[in-house]
């Protein structure tokens, strides 16, 4: 058994919407998060880049408490993509350069590279985001987050509004970017098959808690708790 490097560690987290959260995220790994609506999946992700703070407990990123990082740096290094693509008004390029410009790191050639990663033609740079299809918008949202060169990616139901083709495309490039561009990833999904396809480990959340966690195959094929068994049957 190889000893993988821990990059994120949450200990005894209690918040308004979460109880007893304990887990580690290792380098090179994809964790998929599943669970019923309102279980606290999004709330958990938001704690990791400090879009929210817990009442108790600690989260360490690369061995250091996340509260010790400058907030902007932490959020840059732990990137997040959301369900509704939440693009800003303006052109594709305006969106792609938003993050890097905050840190004076934008170079115009970056735009084309990023579009290539999400498999869109470079002519798209000048397009207004409103002219794009839902799938294209979501890919731009990905590219916008990748523009910051994050080390960890947090994804919240990023494919739930997309058709099969876009889902396939996004899954393929997610597999490509971990661990080459991004060290690790945590993704919330309501699609159990997707959790299987992408996850190395899977967490099942219910009622503000992580009820089961382990290797994806174990958690999903041999659920221990009745709640997870019932959830998987639905």
């Amino acid at each position: 058994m190889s000893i993988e490097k821990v990059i994120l560690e949450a200990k005894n987290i209690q918040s308004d919407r979460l109880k007893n959260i304990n887990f580690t995220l290792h380098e090179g790994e994809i964790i998929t998060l599943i669970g019923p609506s309102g279980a606290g999946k999004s709330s958990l992700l938001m704690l990791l880049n400090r879009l929210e703070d817990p009442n108790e407990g600690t989260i360490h990123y690369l061995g250091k408490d996340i509260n010790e990082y400058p907030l902007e740096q932490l959020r840059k290094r732990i990137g997040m993509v959301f369900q509704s693509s939440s693009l800003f008004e303006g052109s594709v390029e305006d969106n792609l350069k938003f993050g890097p410009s905050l840190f004076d790191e934008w170079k115009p050639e970056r735009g084309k590279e990023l579009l290539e990663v999400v498999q869109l033609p470079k002519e798209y740079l000048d397009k207004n985001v409103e002219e794009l299809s839902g799938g294209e918008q979501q890919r731009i949202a990905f590219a916008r987050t990748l523009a910051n060169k994050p080390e960890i990616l947090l994804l919240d139901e990023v494919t739930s509004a997309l058709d099969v083709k876009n889902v396939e495309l996004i899954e393929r490039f997610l597999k490509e970017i971990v661990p080459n561009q991004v060290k690790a990833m945590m993704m919330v999904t309501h699609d159990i098959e997707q959790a299987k396809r992408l996850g190395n480990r899977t967490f099942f959340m219910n009622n503000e808690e992580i009820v089961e966690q382990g290797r994806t195959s174990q958690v999903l094929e041999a659920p221990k708790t009745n709640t997870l068994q019932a959830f998987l049957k639905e």
Partner: protein
Amino acid sequence: MAPEISNVSMFFLVFFVLIPVSLSYFYALGLSKSIFWSSFRGVTQLFLIGYVLTYLFSLEPLTGISIMLTVMIVVAALHASKKGQGIPFVRSITFLVIVLIEIFVLVMWLGFDMISFQPDQVIPMSGMVIGNSMVAIGLALERMKSEFKEGKGKIIAALALGAKPEQASKILVRKIVKASMIPNVDGLKTIGLVQLPGMMTGLILGGVAPIEAIRYQIVISLSIFASVSLSAMLVTVIFYRFFFNKNQQMIQMKES
């Protein structure tokens, strides 16, 4: 001397009131009572303000102007800040913003000798600026609340990219300031072609030559434009911070 409208002539305005009243009666709109009441109230208010202004104009310029400006600014601040219920310090900050704007226009007007420090000039001109700023601030506050609610996903996305609240808000603030300017930009384009602006109309009726009247109109129109854009800008750059906590997280605004 300006031509006067006699009491007898004024009396025949009743016909103007009777038209909406009879329409209300004919179409069973049930508005007769409120038409009478609002007409009566409006007329009374105007007569009262006529007397108040006459009195204020007779005082020392500084006294008359101070009294009237204070009243106008307080009323405007109270009214505008209603639209921002739930935002901390909204009343006092709105008050200060209007005071700032009034000082700014007064400095311009008096400094460049556009008008003189007389109640009959300063009060009506200030009234127009304060009234328009009041509306602009109310709209900006209202838009701000709705934009921060509807645009919450965008703000959170911006924060998640490493933006500070100020930078994240910019995407919405731009929209709000722009929206506040557009009616003025449009209004200035057709000014005088469709409708003679109220102030100019008044001056012309009062016997001022049109070529003089337009000078006042230009001063007031541009002053209003400047104050309205400034109000919206100040309101948004001051108030955005109340939508965030010190850890650069969005906070839930209480519904009003």
